């Protein structure tokens, strides 16, 4: 039986409406559809009741394994605690079921919260202006690359191999349309930082893209990279994990020209990678080329301060073919969740959260590197994600650890997923590990205990072969 609860009319209602229109039956209202195109019926099963649908979805949900506190997966999607107050506020119907705030008088709640989000992003990144959000970090990176090329009038993009291979792929996809050129900057094999000597950059390059921390977890030297980019008149685009910005210096103060990233680390659950919040921040002088929505402050006819969408002449609904981007709907509700979480954290909470993750990650790394044959993959400083070089294939290590209830990290080869390797050659023994405040000390202890056992087991197996 179809979901009558999602439909409103009774048969009597329908009769009444048809009569008011002067139509004999509903089919008359579809008479403009040529007969040859008319469908008999959709080939879908009949609708389920709420009870049945819930049972069906719960069954599907239960077929997935919910990661616990022994999950150490990162690589662009970081698990963080979401306070209950965030969910409660974000699920309010007034936020959830509102539309894009085109009518300012009806949308001050949404508009003001976006203005607050924009402000938070500026504060975190050290930039002057931030947009109302984009889909995720990687698509924001791609938009920033296109923006940088518009600003410099050039057609070449340089991307560090420290940028997550999947994000790099997305930049490639966006660049393929207008047929822009893309080349990669290597990482230093031992240190793991992006190599960009001042003389080594091509003067035809308009945008240099780096990730902070990079995909091996290494904290890049942004001042150095900014100098290299600026020396050839290119713009430095930094994709930053904003979780680190209570401890690390803001990219805007280190010479970054465009700062992007994913604010989904605040207020949002991992959701299989689907609860992201892309952001893009720039300086005043670049404002006209910024894609995405912007909320601005103004006054109404009675002089009351209020907020409204502004500078819409950049956008698709006004500028159409000459818009800065096609982006329309973005990730507004996820951005609201991030804003609320940042309001709860404050500067102290942000720093504290960062330090907890930092301390635990370093503790785990040090202890793991005491295991025979385990070394850091690279020596550069790291924040809460690090890469290890194991004495055995990372995939085998992960399989054995999973059998013991630990999700120990992501093999670098999985991260690379058929793309060119991050370092010069493929490293099958490399593992990328993330540690957050969701991994308590007991989880770290369990990791260490099982890692010892598993490495022994796997090394013995190899020796037997």
């Amino acid at each position: 039986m179809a979901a009558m609860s999602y439909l409103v009319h009774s048969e009597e209602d329908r009769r009444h409406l048809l009569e008011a229109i002067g139509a004999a039956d509903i089919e008359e209202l579809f008479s403009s559809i040529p007969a040859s195109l008319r469908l008999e019926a959709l080939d879908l099963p009949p609708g389920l009741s709420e009870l049945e649908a819930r049972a069906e979805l719960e069954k599907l949900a239960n077929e997935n394994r919910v990661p616990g506190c022994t999950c150490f997966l990162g690589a662009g999607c970081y698990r963080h605690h979401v306070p209950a107050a965030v969910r409660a506020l974000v699920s309010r119907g007034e936020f959830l079921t509102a539309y894009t705030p085109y009518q300012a008088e009806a949308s001050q709640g949404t508009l003001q919260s976006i203005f607050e989000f924009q402000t938070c992003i500026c504060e975190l990144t050290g930039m002057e202006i931030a947009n109302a959000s984009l889909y995720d970090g990687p698509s924001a990176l791609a938009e920033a690359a296109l923006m940088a090329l518009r600003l410099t009038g050039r057609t070449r993009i340089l991307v560090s191999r420290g940028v997550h291979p999947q994000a790099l792929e997305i930049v490639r996809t966006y660049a393929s349309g207008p047929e822009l050129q893309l080349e990669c900057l290597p990482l230093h094999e031992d240190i793991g930082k992006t190599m960009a000597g001042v003389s080594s950059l091509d003067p035809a390059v308009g945008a240099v893209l780096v990730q902070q921390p990079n995909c091996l977890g290494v904290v890049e030297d942004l001042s150095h990279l900014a100098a290299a980019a600026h020396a050839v008149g290119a713009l430095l685009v930094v994709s930053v994990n904003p979780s680190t910005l209570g401890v690390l210096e803001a990219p805007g103060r280190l010479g970054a020209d465009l700062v992007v990233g994913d604010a989904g680390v605040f207020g949002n659950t991992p959701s299989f990678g689907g609860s992201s919040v892309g952001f893009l921040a720039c300086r005043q002088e670049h404002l006209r080329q910024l894609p995405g929505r912007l909320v601005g402050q103004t006054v109404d006819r009675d002089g009351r301060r209020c907020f409204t969408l502004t500078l819409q002449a950049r956008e698709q609904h006004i500028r159409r073919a000459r818009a800065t981007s096609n982006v329309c709907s973005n990730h507004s509700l996820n951005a609201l969740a991030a804003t609320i979480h940042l309001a709860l954290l404050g500067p102290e909470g942000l720093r504290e959260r960062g330090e907890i993750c930092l301390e635990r990650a370093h503790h785990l790394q040090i202890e793991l590197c005491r295991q025979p044959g385990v070394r850091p993959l690279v020596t550069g400083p790291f924040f809460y994600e690090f890469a290890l070089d194991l004495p055995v294939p990372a995939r085998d290590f992960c399989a054995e650890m999973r059998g013991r209830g630990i999700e120990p990290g992501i093999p670098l080869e999985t991260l690379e997923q058929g793309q060119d390797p991050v370092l010069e050659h493929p490293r099958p023994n490399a593992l990328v590990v993330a540690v957050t405040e969701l991994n308590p000390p007991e989880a770290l202890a369990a990791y260490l205990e099982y890692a010892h056992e598993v490495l022994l087991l796997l090394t013995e197996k190899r020796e037997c072969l």
Partner: protein
Amino acid sequence: MSRTSELEPLVFEKSSPGHKGVDLPASGVPGQEIRDLLPGVELRRQAPRLPELSEPEVVRHYTRMSQLNLSVDSSFYPLGSCTMKYNPRLHEELAALPGFAELHPYQPETEVQGVLRLMYELEQMLLRVTGMQAATLQPAAGAHGELVGVLIIKAYHRDQGEAHRDTVIVPDSAHGTNLASAAMVGYRVVELPSSRRGLIDLRALEAALSEHTAALMLTNPNTLGLFEEDILEVAAMVHRVGALCYYDGANLNAIMGKTRPGDMGMDVVHLNLHKTFSTPHGGGGPGAGPVAVTTQLAPYLPVPVVRRIAAGEGDGETQAGGERFTLDYNRPLSIGRVQGFYGNTPVLVRAYAYLLRMGAEGLRQASEDAVLNANFLRSRLSRLFPSPYNGPCMHEFVLSAASQAEGGVTARDVAKRLLDFGFHPPTVYFPLIVPEALMVEPTETESRATLEAFVTAMEQIAREAREQPQLVREAPHTTVIRRPDEALAARKPVLRWQ
């Protein structure tokens, strides 16, 4: 939106030094100096000026802010081409189940078979609704889907040795995103003037089509709410010159169970889950814009593709076993990725739940009721706000406030006056081909009582426009703010709190 609502200060203005809303446990590991953990790294010299509030203060602030919004939950929201239908609460609970919400995208496939199955089944259902052959759920919004679709078209032509095709044609009634998406992929865009009846003009199309045409992008019904009766001929004409047909699915709510874009000859289709399929708009997203294509274009879909491996089949890598689902990265012709991971999963869960709940009958009924409601409103309002296209419509229709111009009343004024009646206004000034346009889409989840109340309000506004135009020109009168100065906002942009 309560008439007694007061504006809220900014969260930064409510900040009090030392207030904090989150308490975290200690790290529990031996402490170390941050400088020692991050040697040679530039550390934060000045803390970001985030607000300092306790949890109760944060809850109060955002609760009060929410009360300044109109929403589908509280009000009739007849925005044309937005399909502001009811957002079922069951779907919110289901999307929040830990078995979906807590999954990490890098968990091994064996651990996420439930969500992979959901994605596969959702794709299959969307293919049946649209009559297409293969799909991706990766795009995060309709415009993102358009980008994917146009990239697919470009890749296809390149592989056919037809990379010289550099033009995309759109009707002048098209959504702005269509043009912007084509331009983002490097295409030149040609706008086709609509016929007197508001449809695609076949002669103009014939003249515009050439060996340089890559695609025609259209929506059907179009943004005037009119079904393109010549759609089969249109598709045939486009295919005859070797170009492809792109279908913008924003208006799919008119035709579910009645006809399908695949049967119309469309090659690429995008859908808006946050329109037709009831997922909430969230104040501007997240949505999802799945793309469905014909078999010949399937190889170009973004990677990875969700594949079903039947029971007993192996895939060369693992043992044959029960039915299972996998993410297929072996797609040499794929246009690549457009999103970090696999799609906006929470939105996909909601849409899947909607399709399960509605079933074939429910979807058909939804489209019928949507078209019924739109025609009812049109039959009552088109006399008062006549537009050049007053005939029967599908799920939406366009009015014009041009006949109110005598009193100096514009479409904007009518929209603002509607706010005083507690309604969110229709879309205004779109489509561009109707002067003083008001685009109305009621959707199927509005009752007779609501429709009648809207008609009454519009009748009163029409009367006021004649008899007391100033009341309309100076509207709204009862909202918490009135007529923000948009010119000032653009001239002197203040885009953050200082």
